[in-house]
C-alpha cells in the first residue's frame, strides 16, 4: 500500500470550509500518521480529500498508483461523531460494511465477533446503540471500520468528543491494536499529546503559503508514556510549532 499526495490544493468558493494548499505527502504501508494544527488549517479537508468525499482543485492523490475517484471501502473513515446507525444493534452495525461488500454471512459473523472481542464488547453484541456510553460507541465504530480491512484507516478526531479519561483509554487501546495489526492509519487530532502518543510521524498543518508546515518523525519506543522526558520534549517542540505565528 502507498498513498501519494502530489501538490494537492483545495479551495472553496463559498469559503465555508478550510482550504488546503500545495500538499506533497507520502504515507507508507503500516505507518501511523497524525495530523495536528490550529482549527481552520484544513485538517479535516485533507482527510476528506483522501476519503474521496472532496475532490482536489489541483494536484492528484494516488492510492497504489491509481487516482482516487470517490469514496470507497479501501479508505474507510471513522468520524468524530460515532456515525453508527440507531436502527441496528451493535453487531449489525459492525457487520454493515461487510454486508455492503457481500461478504458471506458466516464470515461476517466470525469477523464481527473477532473485532468486538478485540474491543471487549462481545457481551454487548445485541445492545441498542443508545444503550452504550460515548466511549463504547466509538469502540463499536472502530470495530466496524476494522472489519473492512481497508488499505488505510482515516480517523477524523475520533476521540475528541469524549471525556479526557475515556479518550486516554481509547488511544491506549488504539495503540495496542495498531501494534498487533500494523494497519496504515491517517489520524487527525487537535491534541498534540495524542499525536505524539500515537504517531510514527506528526504532520503540522498551518495557514501559511504551503499547508504542511513541518513533519516530525517520533522516534519513541512503544508503548509510550506521556511523562517520559523524550515524550515531553516532542510535545513541547510540536506545540510551539503549532502555535507559531506566520
Amino acid at each position: 500500500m502507498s498513498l501519494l499526495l502530489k501538490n494537492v490544493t483545495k479551495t472553496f468558493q463559498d469559503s465555508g470550509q478550510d482550504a488546503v494548499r500545495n500538499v506533497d505527502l507520502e504515507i507508507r504501508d503500516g505507518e501511523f500518521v497524525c495530523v495536528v494544527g490550529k482549527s481552520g488549517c484544513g485538517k479535516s479537508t485533507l482527510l476528506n480529500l483522501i476519503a474521496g468525499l472532496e475532490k482536489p482543485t489541483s494536484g492528484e492523490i494516488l492510492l497504489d498508483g491509481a487516482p482516487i475517484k470517490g469514496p470507497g471501502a479501501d479508505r474507510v473513515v471513522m468520524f468524530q461523531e460515532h456515525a453508527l446507525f440507531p436502527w441496528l444493534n451493535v453487531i449489525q452495525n459492525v457487520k454493515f460494511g461487510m454486508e455492503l461488500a457481500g461478504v458471506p454471512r458466516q464470515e461476517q459473523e466470525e469477523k464481527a465477533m473477532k473485532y468486538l472481542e478485540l474491543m471487549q464488547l462481545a457481551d454487548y453484541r445485541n445492545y441498542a446503540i443508545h444503550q452504550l456510553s460515548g466511549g463504547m460507541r466509538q469502540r463499536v465504530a472502530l470495530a466496524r471500520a476494522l472489519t473492512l480491512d481497508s488499505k488505510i484507516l482515516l480517523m477524523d478526531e475520533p476521540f475528541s468528543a469524549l471525556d479526557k479519561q475515556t479518550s486516554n483509554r481509547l488511544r491506549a487501546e488504539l495503540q495496542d491494536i495498531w501494534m498487533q495489526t500494523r494497519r496504515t492509519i491517517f489520524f487527525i487530532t487537535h491534541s498534540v499529546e495524542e499525536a505524539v502518543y500515537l504517531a510514527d510521524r506528526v504532520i503540522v498543518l498551518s495557514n501559511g503559503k504551503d499547508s504542511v508546515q513541518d513533519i516530525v518523525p517520533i522516534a519513541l519506543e512503544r508503548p509510550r508514556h506521556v511523562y517520559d522526558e523524550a515524550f515531553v520534549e516532542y510535545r513541547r517542540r510540536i506545540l510551539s510549532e503549532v502555535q507559531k505565528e506566520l
Partner: protein
Amino acid sequence: MTRKTKKENTKFIKLLQQLLFLLGIVALWQLLYFVGVDLLEFWKPYAMPSPAGVWKSLVRLIESGTLFTAIGNSLLRGMIGFLISVAFGTVLGFLMEHFPFLHQNMRPFVMGVQTLPSVCWVPFSILWFGLSEQAIIFVVIMGSAFSIAIATDNAIHNVPPIYKKAALTMGASQKQIYRKVILHACLPELISGLKQGWSFAWRALMSGEVMTTCIGLGQTLITGRNLADINQVMLVMIIIVLVGILIDQIFFRSLERRIYRKRGLA
C-alpha cells in the same frame, strides 16, 4: 412497591382522571339541556341534543345495523383512499427529494395544492365521477396524498448527512445508500407524516361522504339532518371523532412508539 407497578398505578390514575373529566362534561351537558330546554324553554327540544337522546339514537342505529355498516363502509373507503395516497405520495415525495429541479419547482406547487381544503375538491370530483364511490375516494386522495408527499420529501431531506457519509466511505453504492441507510433513517419522521396523512384522509373522507349518497358515516350524518334528528347528528359526529382517534392510537401511535423506543428516541 416496585417501580413498575408504581408507574402502572400513575397510568391508571391518569386514565381514571380522564374518564371522570369526560363524565363531568356529559353531566354538564345534561344539566345545560335540563336548564335550557326543560326549565327555561330557551331552546326547542329538536334544536338541542341531549346525552339521553344521543344514547337512544345509538341504540336505534345499532339495532337497525345502520351504524356498523356505515362505520365499515367509511373505514374501507378511507383505507383504500389512504393506501393509494401513500403509494402516490411517497413516490412523489421521493422524486421531489431526489431531483433538485422538482424540489425547486414541484414542491411549492404541491404545497399550494395542499392548502386547499379537501371539501373544495368535491364539486370537481362529482363532475368527474358522478355521485359515486370513486368520487369520494378521489377527494380522499386529493386531501392526503400531497401532505404525504411533502412529509416524505422532508423525512428524506432531514436524514443526517453523517449517515450517508459513513456508508459511502464503507463502499456503499447509490442504491445501497437509499435501501440500507435512507429508508431506515427517515422512518420515524415518515411514520409521523403518514399519521398526519391519515388524519387528512379521514377529514377529506367525511367531506366527500356528506356530499354524496353512498352509505357511510357522512351519509348517516346527512340523514340525521334530513330527519331533523339532532341527536343522530350529534351521535354520528361523536362516532367520527372516536373512529379517527382509534385508528390514530391503535395503529399509528403504537407503530411510532415501537420505532422510537427501539432507537432510544422516546
